[in-house]
């Protein structure tokens, strides 16, 4: 099987994040690392490729430094090809995972045909998990998220995916987009040899300069400016004790519900 894995270099805080005077989270950071869940996605792709002459292409979109670090880490794990995705389409200030997903979908289209497009279920620095859904939606492919078991069954993949009421099992015809959890497998450690080879390996580039996978109007809407920062506040905690002395429990409950509704809590 041939897989494409979208990966991300994430900046990890090395100290406990704190709110500053402006309501912004601050923490000391080190350099970018390969997003942990993406290691599981790469491992899942490598397992599908192992022994079947399959390929594992990794691609990343983001800042040059973070992208290169993530791609070289992926090559060290055994990925066969690394591609950096370049695009100026995303508006400055836009912080929209769905729009990023469209750009990645466009990149996937340019990179060729793949049996599976993998992602980690969420990025450590932005744990929303929208990107993979957007990729699948843009390419019109079936999508399964939070997959924590995957097996090849002919030209189909049998999967186990997590949802709020337990596990869901099923089969899907390839090609498909799959986001994996950190429970799906245990990522292999890189070998020192592949690490050295990865250090000087060529990284290819693909440029996305127009959107063809979705309607332009939808794209324009997705690619709208978002606030450059979101403020976080520590809510002021008001404490008040009120005791109602009523005749029976029913009256007490009704009184309590009234009060909670009045205060907008219910």
């Amino acid at each position, binding site marked *: 099987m041939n897989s494409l894995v979208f990966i991300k270099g994430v900046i990890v805080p090395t100290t406990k994040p704190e709110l500053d005077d402006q309501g912004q989270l601050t923490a000391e950071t080190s350099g970018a690392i390969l997003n942990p869940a993406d290691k599981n996605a790469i491992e899942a792709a490598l397992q599908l490729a192992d022994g079947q002459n399959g390929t594992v292409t990794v691609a990343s979109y983001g800042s040059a430094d973070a992208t290169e670090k993530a791609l070289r880490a992926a090559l060290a794990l055994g990925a066969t090809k690394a591609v950096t995705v370049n695009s100026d389409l995303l508006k400055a200030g836009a912080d929209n995972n769905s729009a990023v997903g469209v750009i990645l979908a466009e990149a996937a289209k340019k990179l060729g045909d793949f049996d599976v497009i993998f992602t980690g279920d969420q990025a450590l620095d932005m744990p929303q998990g929208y990107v993979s859904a957007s990729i699948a939606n843009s390419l019109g492919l079936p999508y399964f998220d939070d997959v924590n078991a995957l097996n090849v069954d002919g030209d189909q993949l049998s999967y186990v995916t997590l949802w709020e009421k337990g596990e869901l099992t099923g089969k899907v015809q390839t090609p498909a987009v799959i986001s994996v959890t950190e429970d799906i497998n245990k990522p292999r*450690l*890189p070998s020192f*040899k592949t*690490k*050295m080879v990865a250090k000087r390996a060529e990284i290819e580039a693909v440029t996305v300069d127009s959107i063809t996978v979705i309607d332009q109007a939808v794209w324009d809407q997705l690619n709208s400016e978002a606030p450059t920062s979101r403020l976080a506040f520590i809510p002021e905690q008001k404490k008040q004790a009120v005791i109602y002395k009523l005749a029976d429990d029913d009256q007490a409950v009704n009184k309590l519900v009234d009060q909670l509704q009045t205060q907008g809590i219910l």
Partner: protein
Amino acid sequence: MALLYTDEQKDFLKMVKEFADETLTPEVVKECDEKGECPEELFKPAFDMGLHMLEIPEKFGGAGLSYATTAMIFEKLASYDPGYAITLVSTFVALRSVMIAGTDEQVQHFADIIAPGKFAAFALSESNAGTDAGSVQATATREGDDYILNGDKTFITNGSLADVFVGIFRTSDDGNKGLSAFIVEKSRGGIAAGKHEDKMGLRLSNTTDVTFDHVKVPAANRIGDEGHGLKVALNSLNLSRAFVATLAVGIMQRALDESVKYAKLRKQFNRPIIKFEAVQEMLADMATQTEASRLMVNNTMKMMDEGSLVRKEGAMTKTFVTDAVQKATSDAVQIFGGYGVSKDYPVEKLMRDCKVFQIFEGTNQIQRVTIANELNREYSD
């Protein structure tokens, strides 16, 4: 740590830490130490990472790291267990000994055997040929295009694990000049490992006698010229001396780590014992000796990277570091007090593990002879 590590070296150290945290947990090491053996499958992840071919050039399937970087990685690994580390070191030192005097074809052949995840061994010592390596009695008799190998080797690291050996055999009665080195594949038949030594330390390392009984190897397996075997052995030992010193630094660092942590926690007279000068003195000496040893190893490794045979420096480094580790581990036990001699605490093993470092790869007594001989040569004008 006194060394200034490059980003790449820091990355490698992180990799080996991640590997060892997972593979060589205290529980696993304790169990193997008690049994006196290490299951072969425990080495599979090390082979997968290529830890047995770190400093072997990429064209032969290795990672092509420098000796200096390789040493840093093995120091870290040895801090988890030096017996595990020496199993891998012995494998690549055997290959290195082929590289010292062999042809590219021989090196490739040897590397192809171990690259997928096989062990190698260096078979020199015999029951009557230890420090006096030139008195090897095992024979290699020429028969046409082949040699027939016979004899018993003693204290062979990886003896019952190895799929390929570098063996030193007598090809003539001409004393030190009568020895030759051979690549001997286990698949040739006639090779039998004896009882695994029940050692006081390095118990995760496999050590056995090995008997060669009419083992036929082609003349193409001879490394270098006939009669040059001792030279191959001694040059290989220069390398392995520097590496066993590296492992000893790993043991020292572990002794220091454990001792400082314990001295901060253990209270007597209502104070942590690290506040007492007698303990401080031991810790300070331990830290100083560890730093000095690490620097000495690093310098020797850098000289090896530049192509030096480090005849004197290897001997000096091995002697200094492996003597220093004795006191460091002994003091670690002392700092732990009564708990120090208990097998439920980590430091008694360090003391057991380090003793042999003064003995193997040439005793520290013979190292001093080598150092003095080199000095005599240097000052001969």
